[in-house]
C-alpha cells in the first residue's frame, strides 16, 4: 500500500511537471486527428467506422509521447537519481511513471470519445467494456513507452525508437483497414502489436461490431501485454541503474 501511494505521488508529479504542457497535449491529439481527416477527405461516408481507430491512436500517441522519453530525460538532468536514492522499489518507480502516462492517455482518450460522440452522433454500445478497454490500452501503451525509455540512453534515441514502433502500428493494427485484409506476413506483425487488440476491443465496445477476436480475449491479451511489457522494462531498468 505504501509503495502504491508512492507510485501515485510519482505519477502526480510527472503529470504536473511534464504532461499538461501545450506541446504534449497538441501532439497527442493532433496526429490522430490529422490521420482521420486525411481518410475522411478520401471517404466521408465511412468515417464513423474509423472512430475506434481515432480513439486508439489518441491513446497510443498521448501515452507514449512522454512515457518513451521520461526516464532518459530524467537521467539526463540527473533527476532520476532522486528517485533511485529514495526508499522506493525500482518496480514502484516504473509503475509510477507508467501510471502518469496512462492517466494522461486516459484523459485524452475520454476527450476524444466526447468529440467522437458529438461529431458522429454515436453513443457507447457497452460503456463498461469501453472504459475497461480504454484503461488497459492506456497501461499497455504506457508500459510500451516505459520499455522504450529504459532501453535507450539518450532522449533522441527514445524519440526515434518510439516512432519506429508507433508509425508502423498506425497502419498494421486495423485502424484504417482490417488486419485480415493484409498479406499474411503483415498479419503476423499486426497480431503482435497491442494496438490491434486495443482497436478491436474499442470497435466492439463502441460500435457493437463483431471483432477479430471475442472482446474478452482482446481484454486478456491487453492485460497480458501490460504485465509482459512492465516485467521486461523492470529487468532492463534494474540492469541499467547499475551502469549509471
Amino acid at each position, binding site marked *: 500500500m505504501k509503495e502504491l501511494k508512492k507510485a501515485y505521488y*510519482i505519477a502526480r*508529479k510527472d503529470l504536473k511537471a511534464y504532461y499538461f504542457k501545450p506541446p504534449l497535449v497538441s501532439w497527442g491529439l493532433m496526429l490522430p486527428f490529422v490521420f482521420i481527416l486525411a481518410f475522411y477527405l478520401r471517404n466521408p461516408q465511412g468515417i464513423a467506422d474509423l472512430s475506434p481507430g481515432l480513439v486508439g491512436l489518441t491513446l497510443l500517441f498521448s501515452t507514449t509521447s512522454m512515457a518513451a522519453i521520461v526516464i532518459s530525460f530524467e537521467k539526463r538532468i*540527473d533527476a532520476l*537519481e*532522486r528517485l533511485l536514492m529514495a*526508499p*522506493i522499489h525500482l518496480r514502484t518507480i516504473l509503475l509510477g511513471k507508467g501510471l502518469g502516462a496512462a492517466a494522461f492517455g486516459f484523459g485524452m482518450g475520454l476527450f476524444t470519445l466526447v468529440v467522437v460522440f458529438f461529431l458522429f452522433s454515436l453513443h457507447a454500445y457497452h460503456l463498461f467494456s469501453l472504459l475497461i478497454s480504454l484503461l488497459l490500452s492506456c497501461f499497455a501503451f504506457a508500459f510500451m513507452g516505459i520499455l522504450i525509455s529504459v532501453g535507450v540512453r539518450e*532522449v533522441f534515441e527514445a524519440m526515434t525508437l518510439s516512432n519506429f514502433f508507433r508509425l508502423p502500428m498506425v497502419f498494421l493494427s486495423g485502424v484504417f483497414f482490417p488486419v485480415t485484409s493484409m498479406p499474411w506476413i503483415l498479419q503476423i506483425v499486426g497480431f503482435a502489436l497491442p494496438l490491434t487488440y486495443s482497436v478491436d476491443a474499442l470497435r466492439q465496445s463502441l460500435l457493437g461490431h463483431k471483432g477479430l477476436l471475442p472482446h474478452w480475449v482482446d481484454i486478456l491479451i491487453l492485460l497480458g501485454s501490460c504485465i509482459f511489457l512492465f516485467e521486461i522494462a523492470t529487468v532492463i531498468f534494474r540492469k541499467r541503474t547499475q551502469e549509471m
Partner: protein
Amino acid sequence: MEDKGVIQVQGFCKRFGEIQAVDNLEFSVREGEIFGFLGPNGAGKTTTIRMLVGLLKPDAGSAWVNGYDTLKDPVRAKESVGVVPESSNLYGELSAVDNLIYMAQLYGVPKKEWKERAEELLKDFSLLDRRDGKFQGFSRGMKRKLTIAAALVHRPRILFLDEPTTGLDVMGARGLRSVIKKLKEKRVTVFLTTHYIQEAEELCDRVAIIVKGKIRVIDTPEGLKEKVKETEVLEIQPRPVSPSLLQFLEGIPDVEKTTFVEDKIRLYGASVHNSICQILNRLETKGIKILSIRTMVPTLEDAFVKMTGVDAEAMRADKPMKMGGMG
C-alpha cells in the same frame, strides 16, 4: 572496525573496466560527527557515496547505515538517510515548496506534516520568500540550499553530502558551510566528500584521505597536522615560474618535496629552514628572482601533500560541470 559507528564499511571494492575505482575500503563514522572524505577528482569519493546510498552495487564488501545492511535492506537504509548528490537535481518545473513536499511524499512523511516541514526548512535555509518560485529559476547557491533542504525533509540522522560547495562562489560556499555546521549542532551525522582541503579542515571532526580508491589515513585535522609537524615548510614566490623549477629545487639537499600553490612554490623538508641561503643562492645562479619568502607551520594541505604525494594544485581543480538539460 570501531564500535557504535552509524556508518560502517567493510571491504568495499568497485571496478569500472580497467579502473579500480574503490579498493578495499574500511572505515566507520561516529554518531554526530562531520566525517570528511578528502581526495582529488577521480579518487573514488563519489563512487563510495553512491555505493553507500544504494545507487551502485559494490563488487565486494558490505556497509551498514544506521544499523541497516545497505545491500540486504536497501529501502530501510535509504529511509534513514538524506542524500545531497553532487548536482542539484530537484525538479525544475516544480516550485521550491512543491519540491520539498514531493520529497516528503517519497520518504513517507505523514501527510499532515508535509506543508509544515517544507515551510520550516524554507525558513531555516532563508528561502521562504522564494517558496513559490520554480527551481529552474534559482541561482546555483539557492539550488544547492534547496537540494540540502530536500534531503532533510524526513529528518534523517545521517546526511550524505557529495562535494557540497563545488561550483559555488565564495559567499555561496561560505553560507553553505555555516549550514553544515548548524547540522552538527542538531546532532545530524554528516558524511561529506570534498576536494577542498580548507573545507575539510574547517568543517570536519575527522578526515579520511583517499587517493586512487584507497584510504591513506583517517584522523582529525589536528592529528593529520601533528603527523607532519616535524616537517618544515618554506614558501617562495619565484619569477619566472616554470614546472622544471620543482625538479631543480628537489635537487637541493634538505628539500624532500615541492609543490605549486598558485604562483608560489612550497618546499618541504626536515630542516629546510636551515637551507634558505643555499636555496636562494642556487636560484640566483639560475637567474631566478625571489619576490617573497616565508617560513610556515605545516597546514592540513601540507600534511595532505606530504602523505599522498598529490599536488595541492590538482586538488584545487574543480570537476568539469555537467551540462544540464531542462530544469
